[in-house]
């Protein structure tokens, strides 16, 4: 059974057709990528999957459930967690506090006004564990707005992980990063996928990166799926070469 399935999904903004008849299917434990030139509809696709806004038509299935009408916060509870192209974090809080928000939400105690000491300890332990996974332990006490850009993105990924996603959606995880930071992020993504069998769907513009790590790639152009398949299949596709890779090169 597929983890995520989009059938004939379209989205219009007034007269502008941002996505048309998109089909996408993804199995559990895979690392999939979406590529495409600017304005191809990649982020719109993520917004539809994560519930930022509804699809105009078509069906979105996740983990055996039709989620078209489910609101964003509940999709997170179902296991669909995303990051954003422009980092979305809690700027004035520390790294620890940022991640704690997610851990508390995952522990379903966000609304608890008087938590027990045991619960607080559990939460703290889980935050430490996550920070350890993503290598942020040393930064735990720092305010995130003071961190380097790359670290901020890692914080965002850590927060997403705190919700134990069945599917992690990463919107250009290396956007705006230097080489070293990019390498760190790539290692992180690989490790998550390899060691924890984390299912990941990500948008990326860095071709080397995409072709290096993705199991399958979907290419979007002008709101339509241009091609889909393994990196080799996609690289060989003449349409892709004409429309996208040619330009990029």
């Amino acid at each position, binding site marked *: 059974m597929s983890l995520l399935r989009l059938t004939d999904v379209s989205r219009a903004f007034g007269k502008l057709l941002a996505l048309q008849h998109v089909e996408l299917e993804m199995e559990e434990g895979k690392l999939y990528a979406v590529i495409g030139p600017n304005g191809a509809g990649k982020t719109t696709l993520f917004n539809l999957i994560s519930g930022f806004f509804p699809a105009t038509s078509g069906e979105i299935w996740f983990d055996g459930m039709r989620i078209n009408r489910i609101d964003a916060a509940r999709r997170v*509870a179902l296991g669909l967690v995303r990051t954003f192209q422009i980092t*979305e974090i809690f700027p*004035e809080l520390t790294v620890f506090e940022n991640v704690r*928000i*997610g851990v508390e939400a*995952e522990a379903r105690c966000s*609304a608890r006004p008087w938590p027990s000491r045991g619960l607080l300890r559990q939460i703290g332990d889980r935050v430490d564990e996550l920070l350890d996974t993503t290598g942020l332990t040393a930064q735990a006490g720092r305010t995130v707005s003071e961190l380097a850009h790359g670290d901020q993105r890692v914080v965002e990924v850590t*927060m997403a992980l*705190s919700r134990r996603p069945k599917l992690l959606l990463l919107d250009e995880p290396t956007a705006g990063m230097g080489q070293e930071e990019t390498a760190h992020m790539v290692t992180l993504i690989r490790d998550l996928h390899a060691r924890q069998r984390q299912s990941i769907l990500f948008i990326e513009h860095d071709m080397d990166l995409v072709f290096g790590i993705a199991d399958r790639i979907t290419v979007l152009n002008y709101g339509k799926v241009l091609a889909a398949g393994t990196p080799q299949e996609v690289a060989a596709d003449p349409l892709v070469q004409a429309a996208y890779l040619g330009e990029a090169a």
Partner: protein
Amino acid sequence: MSRRVYVNGAVWLLLLTAAWWLPLIGGYMALASRVLVYALAAMGLNLLLGFTGCMSFGEAAYFGLGGYGTGLFLTHLTHSTVLAVVAGTIVGGIAAFIFGPLVMRRRGIYFAMITVAIGQIFYFIAERWNSFTGGEDGLSGFSRQPLHFGFATVPLNAVAFYYFVLFFFAIGAGVIALLLHSPLGHTFVAIRENRRRAQFLGIHVERYVWASFAIAGLIAGLAGALNALQNNFISPINLYWVESGNLVIMAVLGGMRSFWGPLVGAIIFVGIQDYVSSYFPNNWETFIGGLFIIAVMFFPNGILGIIRQRAKAA
């Protein structure tokens, strides 16, 4: 950590000993009670304003409703001062709870304006419903009754009433402090910091805004109940949007991001207004207006914000 313990200890010590030191510096107990009443309301508001990031401009409605609840309860139902306070608190809290769903979806200035709208509707109801609320003339004819303990009866004179208010202030402040250190408080702050991130971590932002709004209303109701007892009087002006604005100013003046900020703001605002309006009964508005301008231009993070920055820099 230890710094916070010292600060809290100092604040409570000063509040507890006010009856001794306040007269020495020219203050009086009724003023201290009033400061606490407004500080409590502003702290409740600040839960919404400073910690959840929602600009409420209609908090006076729940403050006033708490007052009317208490006044009407004392007039018609009971002579128990404590029960009347509880009744007023519940009235404020329930009203905020009921209207929460209307405001929780709005943000920024739209949040401010819909809270104004609801507040003004309550204001005009209080002002026009002569037979029930006393209308423009206000509701009088009730007075705080002595407290009956098993062993003694305590009349609520100025000093006793101060400690009566301080008792409820401590409850209110304690509740807010506990909240802020709980997951619920963390969630409020997360919403202030980044609504979108919170939502995409699976937090139903609107429900939490509702909760924050209701709790703020409950605390405003408590403060309003105490305010009615302080004056033995309540009038529609307590629900007017200007009163809401005053509460916002207290929070900003002291520091929206600090727990004690609204208390500091209330001390400054209520204190200066009382002092200046006695010395310049005709022109005190210029002083208050000037105070706002100076505060906003030079102390945008409030008095405590500055102190905290200094402490950080040092």
